């Protein structure tokens, strides 16, 4: 619009041929391009914050629920299922991109669940679910089982991980059953603190306990310098064929 108006005005001034008209038209187009670019940048930020975030969140929630349902047919309901403190040894390590379990964190919402995926590549973290550190232990095993996921954007899975409180449970569900962990504490470290996923976090000691470590970025949002680390300790394992206690089942499946 602006370019057209300036163009006509310039045409009216016959005394100054050419130059003013071309200059104003070029500036007019340049201005429109800059405004368009600004709008596109804003649109991208909005897309990342809301559209893509919601899309990925829904996809991962549905995928996790589907996995739970698929395995649920193998678990008859028992009145009083017996858990064990020593889950059977697991052998097969998940490959990168493989959905091998479901993460349940009732504090993040009744029925909140996300897929557990092998590997911590960008493709896994941005699209598929919580990524399992390949150098860490398998669920329920002695040592440290570690997962990473996004705090903001790409589903914002761990957006509210800082609301966990002492007494909260985190459950890793696999085809074998449910590994129940008790939340213990949170710490904030720099992104170079790779020792948080050691068999004994921040230590080189040999592992004796069964731990769970979740990592995400901090502070929220739009920053990347630190990591929030959430530690939990293993309490009990419920085998698939025995089912879950009713109280725990209600927390895990109350939602979708």
């Amino acid at each position, binding site marked *: *619009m*602006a*370019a*057209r108006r300036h163009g006509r005005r310039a045409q009216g001034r016959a005394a100054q041929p050419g130059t003013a008209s071309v200059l104003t038209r070029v500036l*007019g*187009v340049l201005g*429109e*391009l800059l405004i368009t670019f600004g709008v*596109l940048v804003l*649109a*991208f930020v909005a*897309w*990342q914050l809301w*559209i*893509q975030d919601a899309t990925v969140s829904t996809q991962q929630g549905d995928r996790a629920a589907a996995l739970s349902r698929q395995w649920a047919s193998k678990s008859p309901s028992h009145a009083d299922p017996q858990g064990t403190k020593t889950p059977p040894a697991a052998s097969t390590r998940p490959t990168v991109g493989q959905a091998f379990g479901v993460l349940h964190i009732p504090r993040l919402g009744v029925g909140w669940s996300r897929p557990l995926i092998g590997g*911590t590549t*960008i493709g896994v*973290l*941005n699209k598929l679910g919580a*990524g399992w*550190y390949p150098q860490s232990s398998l669920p329920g095993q002695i040592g440290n089982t570690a997962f*990473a*996921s*996004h*705090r903001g*954007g*790409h589903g914002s899975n*761990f957006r509210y991980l800082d609301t966990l409180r002492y007494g909260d449970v985190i459950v890793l569900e696999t085809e074998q059953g449910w590994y129940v962990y008790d939340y213990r504490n949170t710490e904030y*470290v720099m*992104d*170079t*603190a*790779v020792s*948080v*996923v050691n068999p004994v976090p921040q230590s080189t000691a040999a592992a004796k306990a069964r731990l769970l470590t979740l*990592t*995400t*970025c901090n502070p929220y949002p739009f920053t*990347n310098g630190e*990591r929030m680390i959430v530690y939990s300790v293993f309490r009990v394992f419920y085998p698939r064929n025995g089912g879950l206690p009713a109280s725990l089942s209600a927390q895990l499946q109350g939602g979708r």
Partner: protein
Amino acid sequence: MYAWLWRHLPGPWWMRVGFCVLILAAVAALLNWVVFPWVDGLLAPWQSVTVR
């Protein structure tokens, strides 16, 4: 640029408005499914959640 586009769209004003809506929808689809995911991939180093 946009004035040029308006001048070169055929038909009366309401048809031009229709074309503009169609073009906007096509651009939005292209951004949502192609351009923004690509840009998002470029930003991955600044969106890390792992320790390394």
